[in-house]
């Protein structure tokens, strides 16, 4: 799981990337936002701000894992589709394969 500081540093880089502001200003913006979110989360989850901070990291981590899983699934589906296509009789891929076998013979 990414630590709170790593998550904040990554977010600050994104702020810099899109605004052109300096690192210190970006970190300050992220810190302030994180503080606000932590206060909100703490209020909603009825925990202290330390707990809220951890909760935010868990949410961010779970979102990252979800995105990775989606990407892997899409890749697997694409590979399966290509293999299916190649296996179909008369497909270009199969013709190529037969031609190759003939060549070998």
């Amino acid at each position, binding site marked *: 799981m990414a630590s709170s500081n790593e998550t904040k540093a990554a977010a600050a880089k994104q702020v810099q990337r899109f605004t052109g502001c*300096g690192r210190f*200003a970006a970190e300050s913006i992220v810190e302030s936002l994180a503080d606000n979110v932590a206060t909100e989360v703490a209020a909603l989850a009825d925990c202290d701000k330390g707990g809220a901070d951890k909760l935010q990291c868990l949410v961010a981590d779970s979102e990252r894992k979800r995105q990775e899983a989606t990407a892997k699934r899409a890749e697997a589906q694409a590979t399966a589709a290509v293999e299916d296509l190649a296996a179909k009789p008369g497909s270009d891929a199969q013709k190529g394969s037969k031609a190759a076998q003939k060549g070998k013979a």
Partner: protein
Amino acid sequence: MATHKLFCMQSHVDSASATNVPDIMSANDDFEFDIDREVTANETSPSHASVMSARATRSLQGYAIATLLDLMGSTGLAVVTTVNPGIGLYLQKFDDLGSPSAGSVHRSLTVKSGWLIPRTLSCDHQGHATLSFDVVIIKKSGTDAVVISDVAALPTITISPARWTLGPIDFGNITLSQYRSVEIDFGNEVNPGGVQSDIWDAHIENKTSAPRITVRGISPTWFGASGITIGGAAGTHANTTVVLRKRLGDGSGDGFVSNGTAEHIEITSAGPVTVRAAADAQAQNPAEQSLVIESMKDSSGNAPLIIDTTATY
């Protein structure tokens, strides 16, 4: 009698904690007063003189590139100070015998409102990268635009001295070699303005930020089929990178911080890359070439320049 010499700049605006910037090499506080002293019909000399407007700009140059870029990025930093002091310039007092005076006897010139803005970052072969930047000054609060103190204590500088120089450069997907200088013009146009016939400007905007990076070198192949063609090339943040290598400060090793240590500066950019000088040639000297990227915001919304002050390469 006493004299003062330049010591350091302190940035302490409301949005950030204090940063004492070392390695400043020059500073100029320039005032521009527009004084009306029109000679009227019944006089031969002015009989009335008024300050119509006043403007001030602080121009500085320094080697603390990483700290300065962390402070102001490529587009600058608004100097807003309702609780913190602002942008201070410290001048160290020397007594008549030539020694630095002790205690809170030094001079500070503090700007309360305005814009801290990068102008150019340049580096020549075997030179140190230097950042030129301005503080464009306005007057927002009741205090003077520049507040003078002669009872200032010198700030403690905790940032280590550092220097950067030319590192690897890629332009429009071409890995360059034989480059001898790079200059980044941040292209910031800051416009202060005033209202109500007040003497000092009361608002300021950074209306335009249109950077440009120019690389000069002595490689004829930069222009051609294996380099940038006459039609130019598309520079992207993935293929256009200027690295400033950090030097070792103690003369050891090969003179540079290891490339895997995250202390170098990387600047990426997007925009059209074109050849500006295919051959800038003088008798008995290697012909010089130059490439320019006119930076722009890309389709993903990235700023024209993305600066990483903790880069490896």
